[in-house]
Every structure is written in C-alpha cells, then in structure tokens.
C-alpha cells in the first residue's frame, strides 16, 4: 500500500496533482495560471470568467459599467460586507486601488501587463472605484478579471511587503493559506464563514507539484491524489480503464498554431505561407498522434471562446487539407527549394515534438524543403520574443477574449514575434477594440479573423482537450483555463 490512502471522504481533504509551481509568497511575483488560481482563492479577485455561463462574473466586484460619453471611464461597484479571514476587516475600495498600484510598483511584480491598459484608478467612495483606461479598451475585463489579486492595504502599510505576504496572508477569498513549500506543495484550508463556500466543498486542498504525467496518473490511480491535471492523450485509456477514477475532458483556451515571419525569406511570400496551411493534414495528426484529444481550429478561436460565430466560421474560415492546392501555391510563389527549419519546443505543449515531426513529411510532400529543429525552450522563446525565428510551432494560452492575443501576434507593432504588417488586419483589430456593443463586436472580431487568415502569418492548428483525471469520490467540472477552484469541487 502506498502511503496513507487519502480518500476524499476522510476529513474532506482533496489532493491535486499539478504541473506548475508558484515561486513566492508574493501574490504578484508569478504570472502563471496556477498562481492566479491560488491567490484568487486566498486573497480574492475582482471577478472571474465563468466558462459555464460564457460571461464575466463578479467576485469582489458586484457590477460595473462603461461611461457612455467617455469610453475610457469604467466604474466598478464593489461588494459590501466582505469580511477578511482571521480578523474580519471589511474589503473596501482602497484595497483595490492599493493592489493595482502594487502590481505596477512592486519590484518583484511579474503582472504589470495585466494592468497595462489602465491609466488611473481612483476610489470614489468605500465601495466604488473609477478606472480610467489609456485608450478605449473593450476587452478590459480580459486583462483584469481572473488576474488582479486583491491584497490588503493596511497590512502592507503596517508590516511591509515581505512580512505581510509571509506572516499575514489574510485575504477575502474562500480559502486560507495553510502551508506553502516552494516547488513542492501548497495547502489551502476552507474558510467556513465565507459566503461562497458550501459544506460539500473540500475542507483542505493540497496542490502537489507532479511534473511528470506518469507520476500524476500513478498517484491518481493509487488515490494519492484525487485530481490529476493535464493527462496526456496516450494515458487517457489507462485512466478510463480504472474503476475508481474517471476522465473529465475540457476544451482548453490555448490555441496552437504555426507562425511564419514575413521578415525572413522565403516567408515574405504570402502564397508560400498559405500553402503551409493547406499542406498540413490536421485531422490525421489529431486522430493518430493526439488520439482525437484535440479539436481542429478553423480560424483563431473555437467554441467557448469570446466572439466565436459558428455560421461565419463555416462559411468563411475553413481551410481544408488540400495538398494539390498547396503544391500549386508553392510553385506559384516562386519558392526555389531553399531549406527552411521548423522550430518546436519539446515537452512544453502536449506531444509538441511528435506533431511537428508528423508535419515535416507533409511539408516535404508539397515541395517545401523543411527540417525540424528542437531548440531548448529558453533559446527558442528568447528568439521568438526578439523576432528572430522564421518558422515555429507555438501555443498562446489564456485566450478567452482573443483581442489581446491577436493584437500581440498579428498587429503591426504588437510584438516582434511574427512582425507582419498588414493594413487589413490592423484596421480590423483597431475597429473591434473600440466596439463596445457585444453583437457588433462579435462581427468586428470575425472580420479580423478573416483578414488574418487571408494574410496567413500563421496557420491555426487545434486546441488540445485538457484531460483531468478525477476520483469518483468527488464531483468537479474542469475549468478550461486550467484553474482548479475549491468552490467548484464537491466531495460526495
């Protein structure tokens, strides 16, 4: 028998095998999904994106509106009577103001990008906050919901950052921080007096770092953990076959794509770039390499992501596998068989090496002299950030509202990662950013999707299924953003 069998029934303790680790007690020192999930539960967030409802939902904020006259002014009305863990002090506007200031000014902060559209934040009274953006930003909630962690102004002022984070991690969230061993585990304890918790939520959450998928699956099957994050496709059968656990899939919000930078020959030729999109048999790769645990992307986003329009997609955005057409495009582009390299990370995304290995012969078959390279992630990411990688496979995570991601990769001046400059794309993205009406915005986004596909700075591949292994003793519907919240787990 391996270790104490931690049943979910035993004291309502749920252990979770996760892949990422937070680096610090400072809630602003990490910028990974895991960090936001933990600190949102301990300290509290302004709001979260509810994937079931398909809309943003307030957590410490109750409601909000944009000023009709000046689109730069947002007003947030905060929840009243939210009492802090341990001493019961009430959450007020000054804490929100303090948090945003701390994100900008804390030397260890890695979250500045989350508040980058914000020019000013002012507390109008104890429960109202005015946020002024630099430019009209329809997607402001994508930036600050799920990401801006609310920490206490008074504790910070009294004890300083280091002690406040370590000795007084008292927040307005539903779970208290019980134990933190950096790189190994995080333990949270339910705050039974919090309005968001129910008796059937677990009393204790233990997030254990288990990077290797084998490790997670074995631990899950032995009931060492009750939830295993990110089961790779080839282990799915093993989880399905076990009697005490079940496989829970969720569609992820990470889009996988091939990027081609027009700054490098031969990728400056749009026909060659389009050829790549027609040359890859994505369905075959999804079926055989990913074991059908992925959904093909037609256009930059799929169902569940903000702005997806199934009708428009079916009519305008599908690029079917067509090697004959790809060959034609390659010839028409004047490509003279110079060698090109496809760069891919290894082990960063599900089966990244295998899927790109499968792509190379497909490219060769349409006349593109491609070879695979597998640089170390450190090297690859630096080069991509600097715009030095001509052709690569990459994922972009946390794409709920695609505005930010698309701007980053495909707009002129967004970032050096691809470096495309296409006036149609720029026009479309600028337009959707300032469209506040949801119906109009959806249309505007789809126009942008089409413009991106026509210019083909990249080919959109698929979204992986996020497979969670879960003990049958609990009920939990996985969150597509990869966040595991105690309030969403029910111990049976």
């Amino acid at each position, binding site marked *: 028998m391996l270790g104490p069998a931690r049943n979910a029934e035993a004291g309502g303790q749920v252990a979770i095998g996760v892949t990422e680790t937070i680096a610090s007690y400072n809630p602003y020192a990490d910028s990974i999904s895991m960090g936001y999930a933990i600190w949102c539960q301990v300290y509290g967030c302004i709001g979260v994106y509810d994937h079931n409802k398909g809309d943003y939902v307030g957590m410490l904020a109750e409601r909000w509106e944009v000023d009709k006259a000046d689109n730069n002014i947002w007003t947030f009305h905060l929840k009243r009577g939210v009492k802090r863990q341990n001493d019961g002090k009430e959450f007020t506007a000054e804490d929100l103001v303090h948090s945003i200031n701390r994100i900008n000014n804390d030397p260890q902060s890695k979250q500045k990008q989350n508040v980058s559209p914000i020019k000013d934040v002012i507390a109008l009274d104890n429960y109202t906050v005015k946020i002024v953006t630099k430019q009209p930003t329809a997607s402001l909630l994508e930036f600050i919901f799920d990401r801006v962690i609310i920490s206490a102004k008074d504790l910070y002022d009294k004890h300083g950052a280091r002690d406040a984070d370590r000795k007084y991690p008292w927040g307005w969230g539903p779970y208290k921080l019980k134990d933190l061993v950096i790189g190994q585990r995080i333990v949270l304890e339910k705050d039974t007096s919090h309005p968001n918790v129910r008796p059937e939520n677990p009393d204790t959450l233990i997030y254990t770092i288990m990077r290797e998928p084998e490790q997670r699956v074995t631990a899950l099957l032995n009931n060492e953990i009750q939830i295993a994050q990110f089961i*790779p496709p080839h282990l799915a059968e093993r989880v399905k076959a076990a009697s005490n656990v079940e496989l829970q899939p969720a569609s992820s919000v990470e889009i996988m794509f091939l990027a081609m930078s027009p700054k490098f020959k031969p990728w400056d030729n749009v026909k060659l770039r389009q050829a790549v999109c027609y040359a890859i048999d994505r369905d*075959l*790769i999804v079926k055989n390499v990913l074991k059908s645990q992925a959904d093909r992307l037609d256009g930059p986003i799929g169902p569940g992501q903000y702005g997806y329009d199934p009708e428009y997609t079916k009519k305008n955005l599908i690029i079917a596998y067509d090697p004959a057409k790809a060959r034609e495009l390659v010839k028409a582009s004047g490509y003279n068989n110079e060698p090109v390299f496809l760069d891919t990370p290894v082990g960063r995304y599900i089966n990244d090496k295998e899927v790109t290995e499968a792509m190379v012969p497909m490219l060769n078959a349409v006349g593109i002299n491609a070879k695979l*390279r*597998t640089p170390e992630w450190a090297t690859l990411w630096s080069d991509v950030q600097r715009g030095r990688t001509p052709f690569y496979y990459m994922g972009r995570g946390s794409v709920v509202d695609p505005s930010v991601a698309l701007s980053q990769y495909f707009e002129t001046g967004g970032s050096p990662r691809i470096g495309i400059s296409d006036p149609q794309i720029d026009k479309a993205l600028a337009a959707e950013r300032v469209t506040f009406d949801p119906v109009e915005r959806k249309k505007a986004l789809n126009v942008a999707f089409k413009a991106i596909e026509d210019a083909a700075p990249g080919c959109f591949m698929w979204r992986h299924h996020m497979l969670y292994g879960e003990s049958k003793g609990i009920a939990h519907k996985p969150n597509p953003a990869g966040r595991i919240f105690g309030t969403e787990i029910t111990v049976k």
Partner: protein
Amino acid sequence: MENSATLPANVVGAQRSSRTRRLRGAIRPWLAPKVAAGAVIVLILIIVGLLAHWIAPYDPNVQNLSHALRPPDWLFGSHLLGTDAVGRDILSRLFYGARVSLVIAVMVVIISGVVGIVLGAISGYFAGSTDFLIQKLVEVVWAFPPLLLAIAIMAFLGQGLENLILALVSQRWIAYCRVARGQALSLRTREFVDAARSLGANHTRIILRHIMPNLFPSAVVIGTFSMASAIISEAALSFLGLGVPPEIPTWGSMLADGRTYISTSWWLALFPGLCIFFTVLGINLLGDGLRDILDPRLKRSGSGIG
C-alpha cells in the same frame, strides 16, 4: 642470428615448438572470455553501424501515422521491435543509432586523445611555466563535476553534432594528458635526450619518436573506457534535451522520447536502453581485458573506469 640449417635437427625442433608455444602464449590472453566477449559485442556494434543502410528493414525517418505506437511483433511482425509515436520502425532506428553512437564515440576518443596527448607531452617535456599553465587548466577543468561541464557547454552552444562532440571532449582529454605528461617528465631526464638534441634533433621529433610509442598501451586502455563513458554521456545529454537535432536518431534521444510513454509503450524505452547497456558492457569487458594484457599498472589507479 642462428641459422637453423646449421643446427642439429632436435634443437631446431625444440626451437620451433618453443616458438609456437610463445606464439600461442601471446595469443592466449586475447582469447580469455572477457576479452573475447567484449570484442564480439564491439564487433557486432561496428558491423551494425557500418551496414545499417543495408540491413535496416525500414528508413529510420519514414513515418506512418496510422501505425504509431505499435508493440513489438516477433512472429509475423512488420515491425520486430514496434514503432514509435509517429510510426517509425524502432529496429531500424536502433541500427542507425548504432552508427551515430559509433561515430560520436570514435570522434570523441580520437579528438580527446590527440588533444590530451599533445598537451600532456608538451607540458611534461618543456616543464617550467608551460607545464604550470597547462596543469592549471587541467585542474580547473578537472574540478568540474563530470556531467556539469558538458551540460553548460551544450546550453551555451545549442544542439548539434559538433557541439555534442566538443562537450564530450571537454573533460576527457585529461586522462590522456596525465599519462603523456608522466611519460614526458620521465623522459626529460634521460641522457639520450641531450644526446639527441646535440645531434640537432628538434623537440617535435624527440617527442614523437620517444614519448608516443610508450603511450600506446595506456592510450588504448583509456580510449576504450572513454568510448564507453562517451556513449553513456551522450545518452544522458540527449535525455536532458541537450543532444543532437531530431533528425539524427541516437539511442539517447530514443530513450528520452520513450520515457513519456513508459507505462503504455514500454518498448520505446527498453530497447534503446538495452543497446546502450550491452554496448557499454562490451566495451568495458574489452577494455578491462586489454588492460590486463597491455598495461597492468593502470589497474589500481582507478583511472580506467568512468
């Protein structure tokens, strides 16, 4: 020289049989099970590596996505040892991997041998400040825990066959250097060196004629052990993702790839590992046997293994 024609017959007969006895005596140590087993294994490695192109049933890079992750099929199999995640034949990749391992190991041994012996000979022969500098270099490089220097160099240079060879050579030249230096130091004091110098022989000639030949036995022994450790180190570096680019199949990278699938497709990790193990075993047996024959003095210094 005695002319056998002028000696009485029984003496000649005795001479001949003692010569064959000497001959047999010279060959016998080579037939000891250790050396024989090791030599056979190494020979198989060389043959497989050289003939990979002809004996491999498939092209090692040909993919067949619908035949991915097939288990080994001994009896009727199209794929004797199964296929990997993109449908490539494991057996063929193992054969080509033998070739790569061989190439890497041989290159590493030759280059580190040349560098080490040259530096060691110069160091010992010229002594003085040259010796001091070179020995300081030895100390610094030697002080690195073995794998760390290679990891640091690979992180610095990136993927590539030449980079890998450089990383593997970076510490291995030291064993040769020590031996060569020892020889050179002992030589320095001998009179015939002064005699040779007075006759006008230059340094290079002296080093080549007098130091090199004596180094041969030690170099061979060091070389064989160094080959074994090079193969393991290449596998270790590939395992950590710091090896050769993906289109070159090496046992180490096959092992690294196979590790992800260990519980569902055990053959991916088992066979490359077995190949590494047996190859290294064969080389170690051969090296140990060679050492027994050529240079028993190295037995106790512990410089042979690792």
